[in-house]
């Protein structure tokens, strides 16, 4: 090895760690601290439109933590309701996505290997095409004179068009539709690794298929279920585009509240406080997701 390379090598190690680390700290970690700071300030008519939290005037460093934004979030019923309804919408959508996604992942994992890869590509392909356009597609389908109502009327299943668009139901459909691939993918990765001999042994010992499923397959796929549910539920809680385009004014979600505080009311401190509370509530699920993800990578390394 040349002397030059020897000299460079220890530094290259730190450069390798440093470049992505620095990017994430500057553009991902520090912004949260700034949002935290702004959430403790007061709305002001200035640019930027909030009062300073940390001030240095007359040789005195003063820290003013204004809690009114947070108190407002917990006392104003609009915010509390937005919270409860976000968690409810995200939770039910996650459950529906699991109920649809699990059978799909299970069936695909049992296909012959070549067919398996094509089926998984077909599951993932829609999530590569525009998210926004997939939400937009449902506007035309769910409208009172849209395709779904036309089909149901033609089949004489209903007499009058159903009002689905601009209701929470439409938001459920949109979330399940858009996030389904994120549920199927981790479930499939898990289910495809299962050892079939375990099921065969259970059958040999006289277990009925459903019994074998509940006592072998389901417990073994726990990690996949957790990863899939987290991948769907965490972003769904903060979802903005789907309730905005499909849900109508009655679908109250926290992502919309944050958006309106920022863009319509130009209230940066309140928007920041909403973001911090959202982050705190999502912290536990995010940590669970991180651990599952980390273990997945470490498992493959060994």
């Amino acid at each position, binding site marked *: 090895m040349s002397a030059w390379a020897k000299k460079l090598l220890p530094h290259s190690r730190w450069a390798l760690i440093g470049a992505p680390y620095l990017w994430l700290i500057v553009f991902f970690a520090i912004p949260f601290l700034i949002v935290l700071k702004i959430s403790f300030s007061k709305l002001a008519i200035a640019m930027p439109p909030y009062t300073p939290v940390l001030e240095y005037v007359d040789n005195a460093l003063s820290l003013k933590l204004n809690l009114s934004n947070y108190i407002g979030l917990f006392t104003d019923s609009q915010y509390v309701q937005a919270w409860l309804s976000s968690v409810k919408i995200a939770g039910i959508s996650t459950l529906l996505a699991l109920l649809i996604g699990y059978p799909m992942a299970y069936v695909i994992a049992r296909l012959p290997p070549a067919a398996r890869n094509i089926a998984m590509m077909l599951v993932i392909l829609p999530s590569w095409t525009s998210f926004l*356009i997939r939400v937009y597609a449902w506007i035309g389908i769910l409208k009172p004179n849209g395709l779904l109502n036309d089909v149901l009327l033609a089949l004489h299943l209903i007499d009058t068009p159903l009002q689905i668009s601009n209701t929470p139901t439409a938001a459920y459909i949109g979330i399940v539709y858009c996030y389904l691939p994120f549920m199927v993918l981790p479930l499939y990765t898990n289910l495809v690794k299962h050892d079939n001999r375990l099921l065969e042994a259970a059958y040999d010992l006289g277990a009925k298929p459903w019994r074998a499923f509940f006592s072998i397959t389901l417990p073994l796929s726990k990690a996949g279920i957790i990863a899939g549910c987290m991948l769907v539920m965490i972003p769904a809680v903060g979802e903005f585009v789907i309730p905005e385009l499909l849900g109508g004014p009655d679908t109250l979600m926290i992502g919309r509240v944050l958006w309106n505080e920022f863009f319509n009311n130009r209230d940066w401190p309140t928007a920041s406080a909403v973001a911090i509370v959202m982050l705190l509530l999502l912290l536990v699920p995010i940590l669970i997701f991180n651990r599952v993800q980390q273990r997945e990578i470490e498992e493959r390394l060994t």
Partner: protein
Amino acid sequence: MNPLSRRWPTWTILGLGFAFLYLPILVLMFYSFNENRLATVWSGFSLKWYGRLLQNDQMLGAAWVSIKIAFWTATTAVVLGTMAALVMTRMGRFPGKTLFGALITAPLVMPEVILGLSILMLFMSLGSVIGMAPRGLVSIWIAHVTFTLAFVTVVLSSRMAELDKSLEEAAMDLGANRIKVFFLITLPIIAPAIAAAWLLAFTLSLDDVVVASFVSGPNSTTLPMVVFSSARRGLNPQVNALATIMIVVVSAAAFVGWWLMSRDEKRRQRDMQLALQDGG
């Protein structure tokens, strides 16, 4: 039991699942060829919305802005993501690795409204402290790199984790240093995964409306922002036409990415079989 009757649940589940995933997209594409301006009432085949779209300077301008941002985002994210994946899979423990792992995976699930707001607040603070802040294209590029980096790193680290380390070790035993090993051994092997990760970052950036709405300044309206404001007002046949073009282009790109990955996978398995035969 004959195989066909045992297979019906499989086909029913797959049929229903794929119908749910694909019918809305196909319906959308179908109505882009509708002559009627009410996007859901069929009154004859026509390409007129494609013609209108090609004359719509606002949409074309926004499309060009989005493509430029997506190109630079994907390129930057792939460079940083390869480094991050090497750190995650090839380096032992170092102080701060846990935080590093958390910072890498957290943007995968972080709600977009939080990402958009926080990164804008950073730019605003920079603006008031040092008097200058990135605006427009550069600020969207920075924000997009930050969240696509997570996806790129996950794709690349799972590929690197599966990679047979004995090749790299053999090269090092023969006296190659780590930098040389990376460029001569690792990089050529993971090249298809890098191409797939680049395409993923490109499509994610091309698709984002929420983060871009927060950080974009004047004169930097992206295509999703135009589509979103039009979709808020209701259906617009030009959006159907645009969507059809985008779906065709993205599906083609995704197919190429998938094909690269699966060809690589097949070659790898064949090589492994050959190696085993040689050994035995």
